[in-house]
């Protein structure tokens, strides 16, 4: 089904992660630090895209996350995003999260594990290959 929601391609700033979406592939990726001044506004676009995708397409959805530091409101927003995915998963929609972490920073992995708790959809925590 053709998209009525434009793909996002927002470069990272010091306080916000890069956002990239691919409607055709059913993919949304976030990469970087997240402590936006207005997290409601920042994550609003992400919610809108995911909700639009889930409503207008019936393809699978995959989140590719390389998040390092997150402030409290970003943690809350990500939990809301995961709740959206859990809801879709309950409606037997194929959803998946790949959370990448630098193996030199094990703490990020521990935090991803905290996030993963209580969710039923595939939530993979994967080390990034270092050179």
């Amino acid at each position, binding site marked *: 089904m053709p998209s009525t929601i434009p793909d996002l391609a927002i470069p990272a700033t010091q306080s916000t992660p890069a956002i990239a979406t691919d409607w055709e592939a059913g993919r949304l990726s976030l990469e970087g630090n997240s402590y936006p001044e207005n997290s409601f506004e920042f994550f609003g676009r992400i919610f809108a895209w995911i909700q639009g995708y889930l409503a207008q397409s019936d393809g699978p959805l995959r989140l590719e996350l390389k998040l390092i530091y*997150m*402030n409290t409101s970003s*943690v809350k927003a990500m939990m809301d995003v995961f709740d959206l995915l859990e809801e879709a998963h309950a409606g037997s929609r194929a959803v998946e999260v790949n959370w990448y972490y630098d193996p030199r920073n094990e*703490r990020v992995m521990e935090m991803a594990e*905290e996030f993963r708790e209580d969710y039923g959809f595939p939530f993979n925590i994967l080390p990034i290959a270092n050179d």
Partner: protein
Amino acid sequence: MTKRTGSINDGQALLERIESLLEDTGHADNPLRPVLTEVLEHIHTQNQRMERLLKISDGYQLLERNQTLSLAERCDKQIKRMEKLARISDQYQRNLLEVAESLRQAANQDALTGLANRRHLMERLKDESQRATRKGSQLAVAMMDVDYFKQINDRFGHEVGDQALREIADAVRQGVRRYDIHGRWGGEEFLLMLPETDQPEAVAVLERIRERIGAIHVGEQAPVRLSASFGVTLLRHGEDTDDTLKRADDALFEAKRNGRDRVEVAC
């Protein structure tokens, strides 16, 4: 007749008695019969109404109960969510603290020897000289340089040179007193600050370090004994610390010129 208590059984028994009286053909002409029939019907209707009322009332109660339950459930879920949020957020904060701490260490510590680095020493020198000036106390400042270090590097390689620097750092660490400040000034140069210390005492501490360094040998075949030269001076209250350092440096130069492996004092 048993005593009536108004219970359901009593009511049921009364109804049965009325019904049997009405069925009794012997009372067919009793003038009370039509009225009694009417009373019986009325009681039946009232019973039905009562049951409907109970049903509706029970229904409401059930609804209310379910709503309370689902509210409690939702509340529980929200609390769990908040707890999770706080947990993750706290962890991020702890990480930040750790990062800040390791950055602080990296900013003040020499990576090779683990001693204070030049940046840290410069800050401490400023603080200590101000403190000594304020309190009118003595502060000895010493510059130390490892003798012939370039030759050690050239002859044995940088790895041996680095190892030598680490051992020298240990000698300094072990030779100073608890309250002395010491660190790597750069290359093979080390700086020491000895608070509340007069000249003879300062020389004694430095001699102790010099002897410890003299006990270090490097190189596996034909090992070489290490040594270091020292220049020490006392802070002149109120002077620029650059001038203090300059005097210590000049004394160090004297120590080198006089044959190394010694402590020279600049007054």
